């Protein structure tokens, strides 16, 4: 056993690090450090920079812009992105629909969508959840009825993140009500400009309007926009939710946060904003969070090393999502605690994200962002299969219960 990265991997890390240090604009970096909400143009601008470098969609097939990286290199890349305070690309484009089209799409769909998706010329949103289909996603009811060479959609999606920005949606719809509920689900791509689509924003507790309801009223979608076969959408969706595990625990994000917290704590102590008792308590809490993070980091590295060796599933991999989200949430709690009562005054937002004065001399922007960040990050243990659903799955697949 050994825990050290190879010289080759270290050189790779250096290459990533130096590019990011030079390429990431200062205003974006600052927003990320302070955990301010990013607007659409922030994300688009950065994804295009990364795409020009060839690193926007590294996990995709090489012919569609991916990189032939090893699992270890993918892990290093994600960690360096986080440590450099670089925004991640749109998860809907990069992690979800891209890999699905690359794997299951027709050649025509690949040519039409993949380059535009990598460059975020198309902004995608995800049409999965419905009012009656959350954890029990297969209970979805939005109907698609074939009429000539079009599907006609009626129904509703909900919790559709950033649908207000979206050019296209990838959606699961019901094409058959007979048989098991997982059958009869079809995967469709739809242009958000199609007549009959209504988007209604839902304000969320972080003060941001990124969640939406999307209503379909006789929306006509060309049958050519179907992914794969009719009735097999559930299989394609499972691929989308489960194909990448080198970054699932978000170790880099939590590391970056912990390092910022240590920095902020020391700075506040220097300025007399914390007394000795508070300092001791906070440092102890940071130590405990760091120990938990180190344990998860090692667990993630065990999974990465197993993947690099061509290994299959292992018990360690199953815990990464649950423990990773718990740690991310703990970091937001600690940030909020550090902000103290000054954190009550929060910024307003619009579609440009949080653009309050980015005066670099101030350095206190994180205080106003602490509470919204804490509130919004409750989502990470809910979306993508809630932590309780994860535990149901682990109980069944790992423990055999």
């Amino acid at each position, binding site marked *: 056993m*050994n825990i050290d990265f190879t010289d080759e991997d270290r050189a790779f890390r250096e290459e990533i690090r130096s590019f990011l240090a030079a390429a990431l604009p200062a205003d974006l970096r600052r927003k990320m450090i302070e955990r301010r909400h990013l607007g659409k143009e922030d994300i688009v601008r950065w994804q295009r920079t990364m795409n020009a470098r060839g690193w926007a969609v590294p996990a995709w097939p090489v012919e569609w812009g991916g990189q032939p990286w090893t699992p270890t290199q993918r892990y290093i890349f994600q960690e360096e992105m986080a440590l450099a305070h670089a925004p991640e690309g749109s998860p809907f484009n990069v992690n979800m629909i891209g890999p699905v089209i690359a794997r299951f799409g027709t050649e025509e769909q690949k040519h039409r969508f993949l380059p535009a998706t990598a460059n975020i010329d198309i902004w995608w949103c995800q049409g999965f959840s419905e009012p009656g289909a959350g954890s029990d996603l297969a209970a979805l009811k939005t109907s698609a009825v074939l009429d000539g060479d079009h599907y006609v959609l009626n129904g509703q999606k909900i919790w559709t993140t950033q649908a207000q920005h979206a050019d296209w949606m990838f959606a699961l719809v019901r094409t058959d009500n007979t048989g098991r509920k997982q059958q009869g689900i079809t995967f469709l791509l739809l242009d958000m400009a199609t007549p009959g689509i209504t988007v209604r924003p839902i304000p969320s507790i972080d003060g941001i309007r990124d969640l939406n309801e999307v209503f379909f009223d006789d929306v006509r979608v060309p049958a050519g926009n179907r992914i794969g076969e009719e009735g097999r959408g559930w299989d394609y969706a499972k691929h989308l939710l489960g194909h990448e595990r080198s970054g699932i625990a978000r170790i880099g994000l939590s590391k970056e946060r912990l390092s910022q917290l240590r920095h902020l704590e020391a700075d506040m102590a220097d300025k007399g904003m914390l007394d000795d008792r508070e300092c001791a308590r906070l*440092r*102890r809490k940071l130590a405990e969070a760091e*120990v938990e993070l*180190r*344990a998860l980091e090692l*667990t993630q590295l065990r999974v990465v090393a197993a993947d690099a060796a061509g290994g299959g599933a292992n018990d360690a991999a199953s815990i990464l999502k649950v423990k990773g989200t718990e740690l991310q949430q703990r970091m937001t709690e600690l940030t909020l605690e550090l902000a103290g009562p000054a954190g009550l005054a929060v910024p307003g937002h619009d579609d440009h994200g949080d653009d309050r004065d980015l005066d670099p001399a101030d350095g206190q922007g994180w205080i106003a962002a602490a509470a919204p960040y804490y509130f919004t990050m409750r989502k990470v243990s809910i979306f993508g299969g809630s932590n309780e659903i994860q535990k149901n799955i682990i109980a069944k697949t*790992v*423990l055999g*219960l």
Partner: protein
Amino acid sequence: MNFDLTDEQRMLAEMLTSFVADRYGFEQRLAAMGEPGGFSRARWQELAELGVLGLPFDEADGGLGGAGIETMVVMEALGRGLVLEPFLATVILAGGALRIAGSPEQKTARIGAVVAGARIMALAHSEPHGPRHTVERIATRAEPAGAGWHLRGAKTAVIAGATADEFVVSAATDAGVSLFLVDRDLPGTVVTPRRGYDGVALADLSFDGVVLAGDALLGAAGQGSAILTELFEQANAALCAEAVGVMADILAATTDYLKTRTQFGVAIGSFQALQHRAVDMLMQVELARSMAILAALSLDRAPRERALNIAAAKAKIGQAGRFVGQQAVQLHGAIGLTEEYKVGHAFKRLTAIDALFGDADHHLDMIAEAGGLIPLG
């Protein structure tokens, strides 16, 4: 980066796993506990014959030259059986003191017999009414007397103290804390056997002006605190691996119980509340396993990195062990509370492991005071 065992390490693991399966069932363990000294001399001899007792010693001293990973493999296997024999006390602690500080003569006189299973040794450091986690503030004193020393003081909860042929005793001297080799038969040495709640045989010792020869000093005078610090790191790395073995074993026992115990006409493992507890146990076992590996791999790192990583491992494993032990008892219900079932014993052993050589809180304080861990890489 590689977390696989080598073929030799895997063979060692398989050998010990079958030793524990064949020779260390729950009834066999109870029988060993009832033998004089609180463990089985026959099992100890078998471990010697398997070569286990020589693993961490240098080949030049009659050992096998194993490293931290070999010790991890051994301790995890011993943990699965809740093995009572004094591997930690004799091979890791007292043996470690010889490895770190022993003169060629001191090593030659002892290591061969330890490796052969013929000599039990124990580290006597903790004191009654003394500070709980210290390598410096010691009341036991050794005063120079002619060419040797006079030793006076008391030690408590000495692991394997009841059967040890010889003790490594920490004592204050004018030069600072020093370590001494003390034969149990020396006049003025009183050994009072005790039993730990985890079933491990202990002893309280007192030294009433025990006369030591000059060659009893182990390492230089005043070097004791540094040696003890390193020993406790090695012991904690070993205990982390033992705890992983204990936890993995009771997770398996608990999962089996959930599948076979029926109430309300169904296996209780079909209840979601119990499934989620079991999954929470699994998560802690996996995190603990990661930290035991980190501890073992940190033993040959620079002192600060080694100390902090092992502190993090022991802190995590103290917390994880408490959680997993409590949940295993809870999920078993009343059977988890009996002396007649393995899980209760495992719970007690995990409790003891946290208490030994600095508990979770102690190590978290240490990390906080150091300003955090050193990044991996």
